[in-house]
C-alpha cells in the first residue's frame, strides 16, 4: 500500500517539471516580451533594464530557467500590476473564497447526484429514471455561464431571494480569521455572518455544481446498473442478506469506483467553471482574479494563478488516485 502511494508521488515530479517549463516558455512568448509584460504600463526603459537584470534575461536560456525555477520554489511570482501587491499575497487572499465555493459545489454535486443516480438505476424504466437521464443530459450541455446568468436573474434579480453577488453583505461586520467566511462565522460565533456567507454561496455553488452533478448522476446510474447485474450481487441475494447490506457492501462499494475516478476530472471542471461563475456573480475569488488579470493584462498575476491551479489539479488527481487504490484492492498490485 505504501509502495503504491510512493510510486504515485514520484510520478508527480516530472509533471511539475514539465509545467514549470511550459510556464517559462509561456512567459517568454507573451506579447512585448516578459519584461514589459510583467511591468505593463509602468514600464520605462530603466525599469525594463532592471527587470532584465533581475530576471537574468540577458543570460543564456538555461540560466534563466534555473533562476525561474528558484523563484517558483520560493513562490515569488512578482507583483500584480493592478495594485503592486505581491502576487502570492493576492492569491492567498482570493483563494479561500474559491475553495469554499468549490467545496460547496462538490458537496452539492455528490450529495444530490449519487442518490439520484442510484434511484434512477433501481427504478430503471420508470418516469423518475427517464427524467433523471434527460435532466443529466441537459445538465452536461448547459454552459456554466448560462446557468449562472439564469440563476442570478431568476433568484436574485427578479425574486430577490438570494444575494446576486459578492461573498458577504457589507453591512455585516464580520471578523475574518481563516478567510473562509462560513468557517470564520462559526469560529467567532457570529452566526449571522456565517449564515450570510452561506447564502452568498448557494447560487454560485448550484451554477458551478450542476455540470458535475449531471455527470455524477449519469455515471452512478450506469455503474449501479452494471453492478446490479453482476454475479456477486446474485450471490449476496442467494445468501439471504438484507437489502440494506447488499446495497451498501455489494452494490455501492463497487458502483462508487467509477464515480471516484471522475471526481478528479470534475475538480478540473469546477476550477475552470469557477472562473466563469465568479465573474457572473462578482464573487471575489481566484476566478474573478483571473478575469481581472486577463482584462488588465496582469501577466504576473495570471502566471501565479495558472501555476497554482495546475499544481492543485495535479495534486488532487493524485489524491483521488490514491483514494481509488484504497477502495479497490485489485489496483494496488500494479
Amino acid at each position: 500500500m505504501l509502495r503504491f502511494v510512493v510510486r504515485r508521488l514520484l510520478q508527480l515530479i516530472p509533471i511539475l517539471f514539465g509545467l514549470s517549463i511550459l510556464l517559462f516558455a509561456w512567459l517568454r512568448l507573451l506579447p512585448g516580451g516578459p519584461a514589459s509584460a510583467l511591468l505593463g504600463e509602468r514600464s520605462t526603459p530603466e525599469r525594463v533594464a532592471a527587470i532584465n537584470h533581475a530576471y537574468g534575461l540577458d543570460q543564456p536560456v538555461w540560466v534563466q530557467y534555473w533562476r525561474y525555477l528558484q523563484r517558483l520554489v520560493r513562490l515569488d511570482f512578482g507583483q500584480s500590476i493592478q495594485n503592486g501587491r505581491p502576487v502570492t499575497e493576492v492569491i492567498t487572499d482570493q483563494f479561500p473564497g474559491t475553495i469554499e465555493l468549490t467545496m460547496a459545489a462538490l458537496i452539492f454535486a455528490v450529495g444530490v447526484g449519487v442518490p439520484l443516480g442510484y434511484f434512477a438505476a433501481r427504478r430503471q424504466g420508470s418516469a423518475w429514471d427517464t427524467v433523471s437521464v434527460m435532466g443529466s443530459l441537459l445538465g452536461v450541455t448547459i454552459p456554466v455561464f448560462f446557468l449562472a446568468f439564469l440563476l442570478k436573474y431568476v433568484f436574485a434579480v427578479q425574486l430577490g431571494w438570494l444575494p446576486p453577488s459578492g461573498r458577504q453583505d457589507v453591512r455585516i461586520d464580520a471578523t475574518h480569521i481563516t478567510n473562509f467566511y462560513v468557517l470564520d462565522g462559526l469560529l467567532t460565533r457570529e452566526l449571522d455572518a456565517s449564515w450570510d456567507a452561506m447564502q452568498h454561496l448557494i447560487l454560485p455553488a448550484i451554477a458551478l455544481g450542476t455540470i458535475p452533478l449531471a455527470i455524477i448522476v449519469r455515471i452512478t446510474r450506469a455503474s449501479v446498473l452494471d453492478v446490479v447485474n453482476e454475479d456477486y450481487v446474485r450471490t449476496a441475494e442467494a445468501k439471504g442478506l438484507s437489502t440494506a447490506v447488499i446495497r451498501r457492501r455489494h452494490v455501492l462499494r463497487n458502483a462508487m469506483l467509477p464515480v471516484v475516478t471522475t471526481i478528479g476530472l470534475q475538480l478540473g471542471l469546477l476550477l475552470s467553471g469557477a472562473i466563469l461563475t465568479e465573474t457572473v456573480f462578482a464573487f471575489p475569488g481566484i476566478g474573478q482574479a483571473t478575469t481581472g488579470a486577463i482584462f488588465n493584462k496582469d501577466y504576473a498575476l495570471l502566471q501565479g494563478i495558472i501555476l497554482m491551479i495546475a499544481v492543485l489539479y495535479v495534486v488532487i488527481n493524485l489524491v483521488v488516485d490514491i483514494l481509488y487504490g484504497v477502495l479497490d484492492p485489485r489496483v494496488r498490485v500494479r
Partner: protein
Amino acid sequence: MTTATQVDAAVGVFTGEDVAAGRWSEAFKRLRRNPAAILGAVLVLLFVLVAVFAPLLAPHDPNDQLLLGEVRPGFIPGPREGFPLGADALGRDELSRVLYGSRQSLLVGVVSTLVGLVIGLLLGGMAGAFGGRVDNVLMRVTDLMLSVPGLLTAITISVILGQSLTSVMIAIAIVNVPIFARLLRGSMLAQRESDYVLAARSIGLRRRTIVLSHVVPNSLGPVIVQATLTLATSIIDAAALSFLGLGNPDDTRPEWGQMLSDAQNLLGTRAALAFYPCIAIVLAALGFTLLGEALREALDPKFRR
C-alpha cells in the same frame, strides 16, 4: 454467466436470432429509432443551415444601429414590428445578430475540432502503432497537457496569441489534441491484444496493413462520437473565451460569447439580451451532444438502455 446473459443466451437459443448483423447498419437502425438522436440531428441541421444562410434569414444588417434613437439609459427597445427580438444596447437588431453569431460559432467549432482531431489522431496513431519509446514520450506529453483543466489551457494560449478569432480556434484546437490522441492510442492498444490482430500477424500481414486496414477502421466509431461531443464543447469553450474578453474585440462580426459579455451589465435593463445568445449556444451544443451520445449508444455492442 449472469442471469441477464443467461436470458440472452436462452433467448438466442429459442428464437435462433441472427446476431451477426453488420455493426454500422445496426447502429443506424438504432439511431433512427432514438428520439434523442433525431432531436439532436434536427438541431444540428438547423444550426448549420442558419449559419450558412444567415444573410438570407436575417431581417437586417447586424451592424445597422437602426433603433439607436430609441435607446435611453435604463431602457432598450423590446420586440416589435420588424424586430422580433428587439434591439441591443447600440440599437442593432438582436435577431440578426444572433443569427449571424452562428457563423462564428460554427466556424470555431468545426475548425478547432478538426484541427485537434487530425493532430490528435496522428499523434495517437503513432503512439499506438509504434509503441515503445514513441508511445512513452507521447504519453508524457499528453499527460502534461491534460494536467491542466481545458479552459485554463485555452486561456493561457489565447493570451499569448492575442485577441482574435484565430487565437481562440488555435487555443481550443490544442486543448482538443490530447483527447483524440489518447482515444486513438487507447483503442489501438486494446485491439493490439485482440485475437483478430494476432491472427492477422500470424498470417504475415505487414504492420502497416494491419494498422491502416483493420485497426484504424475499428477505432472510427469512438472517434466519430468524440468528434461530435468535442464540437459541442468547442462551441461552449469558444463562447466562454469570448465572454472573458479573449476573442475578437471587434463586434462587427457578432459572436455569441461576446454578446453575452456585453449583456452582463444589462441584466436590470433588458435581461433577455443575455438569454438570446445563451439559448443559441445551448441549442447548438445540445444538438451535437445528443447526437454524439446517441451515436455512442448505437455503436456500443453491449447496447443496453
